[in-house]
């Protein structure tokens, strides 16, 4: 275990709510930002709240910087967990001025355990001119800076940031991003950051945790996973794992076997037999009821319909390949009706997914 992991976070969290279940194993390193991404309702904010002790009846284990916050025998209450939480809406205290807000957490840390100096944090976040101001007069960006400073001054062993930019306009976002980018250089503890914006994640995160339906779908270095993550339904993509089986140098193509189906992709520079990860956009997948063996469409996969999710433009079909890999297809409402997939009994049906175009993700396969 290296030094980073020693200061990091290890957590196994189980939480059951009506209609929702969180079941997450996660390791977060210190000295960098780890972003939690995933569709709405995936449990991103709930995950942060569980770590902070703000949700009841959480089971599992949380160890932060060697200190156990949660296990089978005890759960530390929130105020005994050394953490910082930057809420989406900043949640500053309206009855205190900026200085009072900044000092609130700092005052509750014993002097010899303080790891952040008030003057340094104020100077870094450029809050000097605001200290005597009431918080109601602050702009959105100023509020988030105060919230960030307030959290840092509590000398946290884990910093949790929930969609810090979502309440801001584009210009304010641009102005506050540099501070967040600068965070790992100033702050050694792990930072867990929830975001909807892939652009924000691309700039901030070293690691990524991809949540779906309360579970970790993928976790790993952001630069590998980021291309696979669709934050909106338009960008939704699936990653299929396969094996490189053939090179067709004449056509500039490589053949990749995915669950017994051959996909042809742009020539990959890798030895045969090595793993390859295919990136399939939901908008490039259509479905049919029958196999179309005679046509020119090469990339056709037998699948089982797992779920139909209605979206504004139609529906997202969640499809399982023969070996249980997940594929998405975005189809129109009309197709949904014509294929009779809008009925509950359609779930479990055998279908054929036709993949119009497929990309190759950077290698480095890492199972979730």
């Amino acid at each position: 275990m290296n030094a980073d992991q020693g200061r990091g976070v290890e957590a196994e969290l189980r939480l059951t709510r009506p209609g929702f279940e969180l079941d997450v194993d996660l390791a977060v390193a210190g000295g960098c930002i780890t972003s939690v991404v995933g569709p709405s309702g995936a449990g991103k904010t709930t995950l942060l709240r569980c770590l902070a002790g703000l949700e009841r009846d959480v089971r599992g284990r949380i160890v932060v910087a060697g200190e156990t916050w949660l296990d089978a025998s005890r759960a530390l209450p929130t105020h005994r967990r050394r953490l910082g939480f930057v809420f989406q809406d900043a949640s500053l205290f309206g009855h205190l001025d900026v200085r009072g807000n900044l000092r609130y957490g700092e005052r509750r840390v014993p002097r010899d355990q303080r790891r952040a100096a008030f003057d340094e944090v104020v100077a870094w976040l450029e809050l000097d001119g605001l200290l005597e101001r009431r918080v109601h007069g602050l702009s959105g960006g100023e509020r988030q800076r105060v919230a960030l400073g307030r959290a840092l001054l509590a000398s946290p062993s884990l910093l949790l940031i929930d969609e810090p930019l979502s309440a801001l306009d584009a210009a304010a976002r641009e102005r506050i991003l540099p501070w967040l980018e600068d965070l790992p250089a100033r702050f050694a503890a792990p930072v867990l950051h929830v975001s909807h914006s892939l652009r924000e994640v691309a700039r901030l995160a070293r690691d990524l945790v991809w949540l779906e339906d309360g579970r970790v779908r993928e976790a790993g270095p952001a630069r590998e996973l980021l291309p696979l993550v669709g934050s909106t339904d338009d960008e939704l993509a699936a990653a299929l794992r396969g094996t490189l089986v053939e090179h067709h140098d004449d056509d500039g193509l490589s053949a990749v076997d995915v669950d017994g189906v051959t996909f042809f992709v742009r020539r990959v520079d890798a030895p045969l037999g090595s793993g390859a990860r295919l990136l399939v956009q939901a908008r490039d997948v259509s479905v049919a009821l029958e196999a179309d063996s005679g046509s020119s469409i090469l990339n056709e996969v037998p699948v089982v319909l797992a779920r139909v999710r209605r979206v504004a433009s139609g529906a997202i079909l969640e499809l399982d390949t023969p070996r249980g890999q997940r594929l998405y297809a975005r189809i129109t409402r009309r197709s949904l009706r014509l294929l009779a997939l809008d009925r509950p009994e359609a779930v479990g049906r055998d279908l054929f997914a036709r993949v119009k175009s497929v990309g190759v993700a950077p290698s480095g396969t890492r199972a979730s």
Partner: protein
Amino acid sequence: MDWSALRLSGELAAVTTLVLLVIGTPLAWWLAGGRSTLRSVVETIVALPLVLPPTVLGFYLLVVMGPRGPIGELLDDLGGPKLVFTFTGLVVASVLFSLPFVVQPLRNAFRALGRRPVEAAATLGAGPVDRFLTVVVPSVLPAYVTAAVLAFAHTVGEFGVVLMIGGSLPETRVASIAVWEAVESLDYDRAHAMSAVLVAGSFVVLLAANLLERRAARGSEA
């Protein structure tokens, strides 16, 4: 002029208000915490004094707290204070009678505040009592002013309950009773004097509260 009656009214109202703030705070906090059948039942009980004639409330209190009533007997067995025709009894009755005037404004303010500020304080290391005193109370200060003024004014103004529980002994004759007695004995001069003091006093208290509340509201907003 019956100064002792006026002083007694003021003392009773002050003690009642203090007790009400202490009891009403946790009760209102609990009621604001969510909705359940138990909460609805308790909320209804708290609101009852708003609709019941004071004499009805006073009558039942007399029955329950009297020497033969269950609470009266229990207290007697335990060597506790007598509750009927005593100052303590007046405080107990006034507290019950004015409970909704404290609980309702506080509960509404707690609900409007929401849990988020409390959660934020917890993440910053403040324990339950700490965050209540340093975040919740200052944030809902205007509601506390309202609650205290309503409790005080309502206690000074009560008559039926006080008459039932306290009667008109020197120890329990509050201003409203004294005015009524003066009128009964056709001593209109005394009734006039007492009433005028009550009107002027009430006006000053309410005006002060009003101004204070406006300042508190500005303070927690601006």
